[in-house]
């Protein structure tokens, strides 16, 4: 008789199960990631009550299913990865934009102020207010660089902190997944993992996907195995732990490693990918760019400043900001090569120009020091500087180069013009002078003699015996001069600009005109040595060639001036002089005879002019003089490298600062190029830095480079904001789709509730019916 009750019981208990599931769905309706569950009912196997006769035995709960689309779940995970990556990048790009502070608080307004003050300074270079104003804006610019550098470092620290905290989160999630894996085994579910544990797994996986890309394999036990970027993170037996590795090298990117192993972990997506991508963007992109800009600005401004001249006309003393380093550790810096003495700016093969100015007369003497990267040592450099008249040089205990001028002299490193280059007087000087054509080496043969007579006296015979020369077929001017001087009185041989020059010892004076007669010993000696023969006179009035202007050529050039005839400047009809470059190119033929007012400037090329004073010149005596157009006062870069007379100290954005010496004494600011105190020649070079194209910036100037950086950051921010919007929308759509399948609709659940409640009531009614049937039966029996 219990037959029917069994069936009713199955209906009641399955209805209860269904109601419980509905209750579960309703109570979890608002839980993130909850997947609605559904009770699947199945008819019980029929009972065989006779041959070929079976009746149903009710219903049973076959399973409680999660209603989920596994494709959607995977898509959601990968979308979470992308969204995570772009969201973190958007946040950092936003931080970066804030760090730059444009348009109101960035470097741009400071650049404007700096170059604006340069313009103001150029209109009145010697005005103390403008000089101080310029230095103050330079100081603000330097501060701007330093604070920007600090801000960018802060952004990078933010990225590194983000990596650290995300790695912590990933480790926590990995541990939780491993705990679940263990729980599945200890729970003994036998391959059928309860839906809520699956839900937990899904939530953890989705959380993990926010940080890294995730590949999931479910093993038959229901446990999860997870790998990312080909690296296994979780196996059923356990998980690995990630760690963050930073380097002491600020440019080296931050790396994620696997604890206890040397391998690194490179996720392909997720927040960590975003952070790992931006870390080098900051370190090698933004921070390095700002440093390169600062370094370029320091290099350019310092080069201009170090090769300029202050209003006073020069410097009395100077100390380099940086010292040479003792690289080989032998206790002395003097044996270090200048190019490899640990300086932050490069020293190239080139020339350093040192001008010594006599403050009383204003006359300038120039010395050029060749610097070779292969041979010039710190000691060489010091000795060469120290060897210049009226200046002393030494290297102090910190390896710094110190220069000091004698009382009454100043020095500078500009490309200023040497006003009176003919110090030797080889072009119309007061002494009677004869010069060779300068073609050396020459051969000296047995029997070579010259005769030299001074002031019409008896000719002195100078014998050039081959035995006096180590290599008689290869004799230079210095050796010849030495041999001649050993046999000559009243006149002296010397070497001027590579030519052999013989001049009377005494210059002309009122009532006295020296004369020099050069004769050939009858053997063709004079012709072979390139020396003229005949008589030439000195004068009591020297021509004293004057060079003026500022050389604007882009490479160094030596000019040779030669008279084309003999005569008096300003008087002899048709007297001309030619100017050629040292390699023979004709620059100009100048009329200096009748019609030329002595002292009038005649322009040559590249900004230079010459003027001839009154006096006598002679082509027959081989007279000439040379002068240099110097393009760059320091083409070796040694001044910038050592920080001699630097405008900016430091080498990058975080340590750029205005030289305190200049702030203390603005008159040291090198505004000119050797003109008067108001000369603004060097200020114009400062101004040129605004638009100077730099090879290191692909032909952009520092400012253009900066603007490009700002625009890059702006469009990065803009683009990443748009990407996040798109990705969020996509994420929302996917989420909607997931919800449409797996989400809980309360109304639907309520209807189901009604339904199962009715089913329960029906089952109960069935039991009641059975009971009534039984009652009736029992009453029959009674």
């Amino acid at each position, binding site marked *: 008789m219990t037959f029917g009750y069994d069936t009713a019981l199955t209906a009641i208990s399955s209805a209860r199960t269904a109601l419980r599931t509905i209750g579960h769905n309703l109570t979890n309706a608002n839980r993130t990631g909850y997947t609605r569950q559904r009770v699947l009912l199945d008819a019980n196997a029929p009972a065989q009550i006779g041959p070929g006769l079976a009746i149903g035995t009710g219903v049973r709960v076959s399973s409680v299913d999660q209603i989920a689309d596994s494709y959607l779940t995977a898509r959601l995970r990968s979308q979470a990865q992308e969204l995570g990556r772009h969201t973190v990048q958007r946040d950092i790009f936003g931080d970066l934009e804030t760090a730059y502070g444009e348009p109101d608080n960035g470097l741009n307004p400071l650049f404007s102020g700096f170059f604006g003050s340069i313009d103001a300074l150029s209109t009145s270079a010697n005005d103390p207010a403008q000089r101080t104003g310029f230095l103050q804006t330079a100081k603000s610019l330097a501060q701007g660089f330093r604070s920007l550098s600090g801000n960018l470092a802060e952004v990078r620290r933010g990225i590194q902190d983000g990596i650290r905290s995300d790695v912590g989160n990933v480790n926590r999630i990995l541990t939780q997944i491993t705990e679940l894996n263990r729980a599945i085994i200890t729970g003994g579910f036998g391959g059928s993992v309860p839906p809520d544990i699956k839900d937990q797994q899904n939530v953890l996986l989705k959380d993990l996907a926010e940080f890294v890309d995730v590949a999931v394999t479910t093993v038959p036990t229901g446990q999860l195995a997870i790998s990312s970027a080909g690296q296994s993170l979780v196996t059923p037996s356990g998980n690995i732990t990630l760690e963050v590795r930073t380097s002491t090298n600020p440019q080296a990117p931050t790396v994620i490693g696997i604890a206890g192993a040397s391998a690194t972990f490179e996720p392909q997506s997720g927040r960590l990918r975003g952070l790992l991508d931006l870390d080098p963007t900051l370190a090698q992109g933004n921070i390095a760019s700002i440093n390169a800009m600062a370094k370029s600005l320091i290099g350019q401004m310092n080069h201009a400043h170090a090769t300029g001249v202050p209003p006073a006309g020069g410097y009395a003393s100077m100390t380099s900001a940086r010292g040479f380093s003792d690289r080989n550790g032998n206790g002395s810096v003097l044996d270090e090569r200048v190019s490899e003495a640990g300086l932050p700016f490069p020293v190239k093969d080139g020339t350093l120009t040192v001008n010594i100015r006599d403050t009383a007369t204003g006359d300038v003497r120039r010395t050029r020091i060749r610097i070779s990267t292969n041979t010039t040592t710190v000691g060489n450099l010091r000795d060469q500087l120290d060897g210049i008249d009226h200046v002393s040089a030494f290297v102090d205990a910190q390896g710094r180069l110190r220069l000091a001028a004698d009382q009454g002299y100043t020095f500078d490193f500009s490309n200023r013009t040497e006003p009176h280059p003919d110090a030797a007087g080889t072009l119309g000087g007061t002494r009677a002078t004869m010069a060779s054509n300068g073609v050396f080496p020459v051969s000296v043969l047995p029997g070579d003699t010259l005769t030299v007579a001074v002031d019409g006296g008896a000719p002195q015979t100078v014998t050039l015996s081959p035995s006096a020369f180590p290599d008689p077929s290869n004799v230079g001017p210095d050796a010849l001069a030495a041999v001649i001087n050993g046999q000559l009185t009243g006149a002296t041989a010397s070497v001027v600009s590579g030519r052999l020059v013989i001049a009377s010892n005494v210059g002309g004076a009122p009532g006295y005109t020296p004369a020099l007669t050069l004769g050939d010993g009858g053997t063709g000696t004079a012709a072979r040595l390139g020396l003229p023969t005949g008589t030439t006179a000195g004068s009591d009035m020297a021509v004293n060639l004057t060079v003026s202007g500022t050389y604007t050529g882009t490479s160094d050039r030596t000019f040779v001036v030669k008279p084309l005839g003999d005569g008096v400047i300003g008087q002899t009809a048709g007297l001309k002089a030619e100017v050629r470059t040292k390699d023979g190119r004709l620059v100009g033929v100048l009329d200096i005879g009748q019609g030329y007012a002595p002292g009038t400037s005649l322009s040559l090329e590249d900004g230079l002019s010459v003027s001839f*004073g009154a006096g006598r010149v002679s082509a027959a005596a081989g007279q000439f003089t040379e002068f240099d157009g110097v393009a760059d006062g320091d083409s070796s870069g040694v001044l910038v490298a050592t920080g001699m007379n630097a405008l900016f100290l430091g080498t990058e954005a975080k340590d750029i600062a205005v030289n305190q010496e200049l702030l203390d004494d603005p008159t040291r600011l090198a505004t000119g190029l050797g003109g008067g105190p*108001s000369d603004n020649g060097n200020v114009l070079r400062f101004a040129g830095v605004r638009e100077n194209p730099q090879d290191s910036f692909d032909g952009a100037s520092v400012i253009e480079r900066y603007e490009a950086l700002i625009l890059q950051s702006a469009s990065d921010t803009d683009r990443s904001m748009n990407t996040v919007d798109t990705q969020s929308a996509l994420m929302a759509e996917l989420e909607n789709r997931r919800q*449409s399948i797996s989400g809980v609709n309360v109304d639907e659940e309520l209807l189901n509730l009604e339904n199962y409640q009715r089913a329960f009531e029906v089952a109960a009614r069935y039991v009641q019916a059975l009971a009534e049937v039984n009652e009736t039966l029992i009453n029959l029996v009674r």
Partner: protein
Amino acid sequence: MSDRVSNDTQFRSSLAGISRAWSDMYRSQLELSTGRRIRKPSDDPTGASRLMGIDRAKERLSRYGLNISSVSIGIEATSRELQALSDLYGEARQRVVQGLNGTLDAGGRRVLADDLDRILGQMLTSANTQESGQYLFGGSETGTVPYVRTTGTDGIERISYRGDERSMEVPVADGVSEVANFPGSRVFRAGQRTTTTFLSRTGALPGVGTNSATGAGRLILSHTQTTFGAPGSRIPADPLSGLRLGVSSATLDTVLGAGHTLDVAPDPSGIGGTVSLNGGPDIPFGPTDANLAVEGPDGSIVHLDFRSVLPGFSGLVPISGDGTVSADGGRTVRAIDFTATGMQVRGPDGGITHLDATGIRRAGAVDVRHNGTFDVFSSLIAIRDALRVEGDPATVTAAMDHARVLLGELDTAQEGIQRSLADSGSVASRLEATTSRLEDFDILLSDRRSKIADVDLSDVLVRMKEQEAVYQSALYVSSRLGQLSLLNFLA
């Protein structure tokens, strides 16, 4: 969108709708409250890039504006000083004409000369005017006093120019530069070099060669040694006559050059005789005369010692004088080469004067006039000195003739002042025109900038009204949705 909508979907989409509407409204509100459309470059990268270009152009304009105002200040001051100089010139000219009309005596001319000295001083003050610490008339040497005076016992002796000839060009617009200053070398001088005139009784003449000295100058020919025979022979005694040089010969003789002749004639008494120089008056000498001065007709003098003269000597004795020339008041001297037709001598400012020494007969001063090269100062100084000349009528007449020529030089020289005055006026008016053009351009740029950077108020207000409506409806719909549920209808 699938058919099935879960409660969570409904909740989240209402929430997203409300927050989107809110953030749109917030953005509009920010734009309205700051008035700026681009607050950071990423708000509009293209716009931000154009803004940087416009800001650079505006910066350049403001630089030009600064340049124009600093040039204007200088040009204004220049015009003022030039006007004052022009007035002073008028005053000076009036005095000179008065002095040259021949009715004044030496005293009257001296008063006028002193007046000229005073006017010179005022002109010098104007010429050395500074504006904002910069000298107006020094060329690019704005830091050094352009005109330096050398004062002697007679007032200002010389005024030298220490500036240069450069006028500074200042950029005032793209590709346009304006002259910022007028160098004194062009303001105070306008003529072209013509001839050089020597005024002297020494026999010196302008030499062959192109001079570079300017204005008025003075050569001093000095005697150093008298010699029997040709110049430079340094023979202290004549071997034929036994004549020797007197002790004062070295210091007081004035004969220079070759071709001087002493004519010695014996006295019939046999003791002493007469001697004459270059056909000048006969001067008696005795056997004891050791230092007799003999003067020739041109004023050249030799001192002779007759004690060893051969008694009864009669004949011609050739003598010469060696000497030096200086153009800078004796600071530097050159030995005179009496065969040179073009000796070069250097003046105090380095200018060269060529001298024909072949005709020099005696020592003395040579007043040199480099016609066409006078500046206002040197011509006024020379006129003043001419007005001060006193002495015999011939000397005064010569000085007045000299002064008339110099007045012509002064008139020529001051044309530079008039020309600069006109030039400064046109620079000023051009600057004004440029300023208004730059202002127009600046307004245009500001307008363009504002279109990119600033908020279009009406546009944003309308947009914000719309957003408000959207926000309200989002709120309304959300609140309504929450109220609907099957629960309301289940018994």
